[in-house]
């Protein structure tokens, strides 16, 4: 009997490992492909890969300066727009679940999560790009903020809900208002989870393509950092160049993929580091 159980145990563990491995295969495959195809491109271009604008078709020079700066600017701007809203939304949903506003916000957040990101792009196109007359970094940031909003909100919600009720009661019993309990007790206790949520949003904003299609424009060959002007982003560049009929552009796309994966990894490691040692 004991042997059977031990055997089943091993079998079960084996299955779990196999599934985990299968889930990782696409990620590993893509990372490997990016290193194999993108590595040499970056190596041969050297620092210029980061300081030059993309080459004309057919020309054997490489550079992703505009989209790299663009992705960083977009990530920062969309975080700046999205995080405070997500934060307030999460506090409302978790700490005031029975208030009318809390219920509305929860519904909105859930709906936004289900919405295809291309629709969010079109929505921002009609309410911002059309009135302003042209695509802009600002419009794209707002689209990205809308995309990350429900994710960040959900993450922060989870972090806040994991704070034991007894701390809330202790605060209330001292004569604090619910809002004061939320901001001076619950949020500080959950701070690591909140930061993780923000980083997840950042990663999400960096990787999205669809919301940018109609909102960002393509300022690819000359650098623009003015939020009201058009910009570029790495995912958008990859999207365009990966299907280009020119060998050199496809190579730039591979190099850009490696850069994007590295950026992801950085944010991911940061998020992991903040999760570690979560307080009780």
């Amino acid at each position, binding site marked *: 009997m004991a042997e059977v159980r031990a055997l089943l145990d091993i079998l079960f563990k084996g299955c779990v490992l196999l599934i985990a491995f299968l889930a990782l295969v696409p990620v590993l495959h893509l990372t490997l492909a990016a290193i194999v195809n993108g590595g040499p491109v970056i190596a041969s271009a050297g620092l210029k890969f980061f300081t030059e604008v993309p080459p004309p078709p057919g020309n054997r020079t490489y550079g992703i300066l505009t989209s790299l700066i663009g992705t960083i600017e977009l990530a920062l701007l969309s975080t700046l727009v999205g995080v405070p809203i997500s934060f307030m939304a999460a506090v409302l949903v978790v700490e005031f679940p029975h208030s009318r506003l809390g219920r509305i916000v929860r519904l909105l957040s859930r709906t936004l999560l289900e919405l295809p990101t291309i629709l969010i792009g079109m929505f921002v196109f009609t309410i911002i790009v059309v009135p302003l007359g042209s695509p802009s970094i600002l419009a794209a940031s707002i689209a990205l903020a809308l995309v990350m909003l429900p994710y960040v909100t959900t993450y922060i919600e989870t972090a806040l809900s994991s704070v034991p009720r007894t*701390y809330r*009661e*202790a605060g209330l019993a*001292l*004569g604090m208002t619910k809002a004061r309990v939320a901001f001076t007790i619950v949020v500080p206790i959950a701070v690591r989870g909140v930061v993780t949520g923000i980083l997840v949003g950042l990663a999400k904003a960096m990787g999205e393509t669809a919301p940018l299609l109609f909102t960002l424009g393509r300022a690819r060959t000359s650098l623009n950092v003015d939020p009201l002007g058009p910009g570029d982003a790495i995912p958008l560049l990859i999207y365009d160049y990966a299907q280009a009929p020119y060998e050199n552009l496809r190579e730039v796309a591979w190099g850009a993929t490696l850069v994007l994966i590295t950026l992801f990894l950085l944010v991911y490691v940061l998020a992991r580091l903040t999760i570690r040692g979560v307080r009780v």
Partner: protein
Amino acid sequence: MGGSYALLVEGLKVWYGRRQVLRGISFKLPPSSILAVMGPSGSGKSTLLRAINRLLDYVPDARVEGRVEVFGLDVYRENPYRVRRLVGMVFQTPNPFPHMSIYDNVAVGPRLHGLAKSRDELDRIVEWALKAAMLWDEVKDRLHEPPTKLSGGQQQRLSLARALALKPSILLLDEPTANIDPTNARRLEESIRRVAVEDGVTVVMVTHTPQQALRISDYVAFIYEGKLVEFGRTREVALNPSHKLTAMYFRGEL
């Protein structure tokens, strides 16, 4: 009305949704006395405490009827924040705020209600509260460390100090020794006894152990299925319980 009593509870009824949990509780408690509230699990003891400081305000489907007075102050007509400033509470699980230092845990109440005009005064309040909770000697050299390093029993005494720092007129304790070791439990009992005698704090304490009630309380209340089946001076009730259930409880048969 009831001005000579520290706590007056009259016809208190509480519902959670459609389910009635307290079915008309009435009693009066003189100042500086200790009441031990006993009763089987689920009888409504915690609900009674939460009705007194209006924590039930935050339970969305809870409904309260009846009257609670704290030193003549009508709790359900008064500003609830003012009520909670006068009525401190200690919970079953030690719950010092993990993100604040030991000092700040005690200072948070006085700061909230503006009780200290200077840093010195705040220091004095914190020291007094920690001494009253018999924790001062153990933490005086590490006031600015987080409370998470303290033992469970020390954390519970810190929770007591946090409540005492507001100089409450009434102190509610919900099975405060249920989750700590006997030595710490004795210390907690001793400090509760002392604040009642020396500082005139009136104490309402839920306890599961008749021995604890006998050790520290002046009065006992016995709640059974939402009704107050026994209320009286501890000695008298223990020697001569008027209700069969109370007798069984004291004999440990319930």
